[in-house]
């Protein structure tokens, strides 16, 4: 049962993610481009924290991937 539950949830999520967005024009990304909005500011600090938790707990994974930000160039 767990496997299909996961699939349904992920489908719902992907769909909402795709359709829920009001189209943001390239020049309207000022707020999204702010450093505090970035998913990966202070990469070294995030890596150290995740590495520490990973070596003290069983769970790991999930972090990674690009996206967000100003979408320039």
């Amino acid at each position, binding site marked *: 049962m767990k496997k299909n539950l996961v699939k349904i949830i992920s489908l719902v999520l992907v769909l909402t993610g795709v359709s829920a967005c009001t189209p943001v024009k390239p020049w309207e990304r000022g707020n999204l481009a*702010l450093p*505090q909005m970035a998913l990966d500011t202070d990469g070294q600090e995030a890596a150290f924290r995740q590495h520490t938790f990973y070596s003290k707990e069983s769970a790991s994974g999930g972090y990674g991937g690009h996206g967000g930000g100003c979408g320039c160039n």
Partner: protein
Amino acid sequence: MSLINRLSIAALALPGIVAEDAHAGRVDETFNTDFQYAHYEESNNRMGVDVFNLTAVAPIGENFTASLDLVRDTMSGASPVMNVRDDQGQVQQFLSSASITDERDALTASLGYAFDEVDISLGGGVSNENDYFSGHVNAGVSWALNKKLTTLNLTGSVAFDEITATGRPEINGRKTSQKYLLGLTQIINKDSLIQSNMTFAYHGGFLSDPYKRVYIEDTGNQVNDARPGNKFQWAWLTRYVHHFKAANKAALHADYRLYVDDWGVDAHTVELSWYQPIADGWQIVPRFRYYTQDKADFYQATFNSSNLGAVHSSDYRLAGFGSLGAGIKLTKSFLMSGFVKEVKLQTAFDYNDRKASYQIGGDSSGSFDDFSFYMVTASINAKF
């Protein structure tokens, strides 16, 4: 990736061909360097770690980006080896001697290439400790679609580890791990975005901890930690970021991660951080973390010969417990227009309390494993 892209990548190696400017993507032109010192310390002077980390990311030409990461860890102090049940029937944790110090050096390098909407990257690295060597290679594709509002991420990595445990010559365990990530980052509106990633990890080989043992009560003997020869981990992380213009352009980061593995561990992680800009480049980031996991099927604090089984472990990391943590980060950035474009200073302090009683649905019987730890980081980043 289309047939044309696959052939084009192969064609790009031909000296006479340079990627067509108009079509290849262009990389961020800033040269980025980071240096961080970090310290980790556990309660009742168990384990302490000092970490030095240097990272450099440089654009090469218009389409390539190279990155290099160097890490030096120095670990010292004791760590739990076994649990013993004393004559009052209480379980006591037995620590290794405090003298062990260990140094780990790691190097990771990667090269990225930007097409118009697709970025690919290839990388690899090695990590060396006196009893543990690890080498890994990784590859990643990031595809920006829907006018860069949606980003699909796909990464894969394979690692080969070799353990030659000090004092345990009969062990020389090899382990291979494969990790895959499928993720989607979607901009929801001008003020918020969501990222959802799933990771799948497959490990095979020597997965036990050569320094840990289990205590068999009825015979009083000790046997080595023995875990299954393979492990599958699945994690599903969702991160939501929202901008609050009224709060001086602050940003809330809310993360939730569901984790399941085939050793019987289910875990939940919640992390909330509030990025609060103050004035002229200062920013303060209070954050909160809660983690809970149930125990692995083959974990017990102590065993007896009837329930020992082929696989058995008393490693506190496989026990059932919860962890509550809080922290504060302070950053200050200087924007300049000369050769150096930005300098950013960062420092943070985190305190985490791990307790069996914090586990959701736990019976808090494992309080002997409880401990707390704090983390301190300080770093400087320069962009050219």
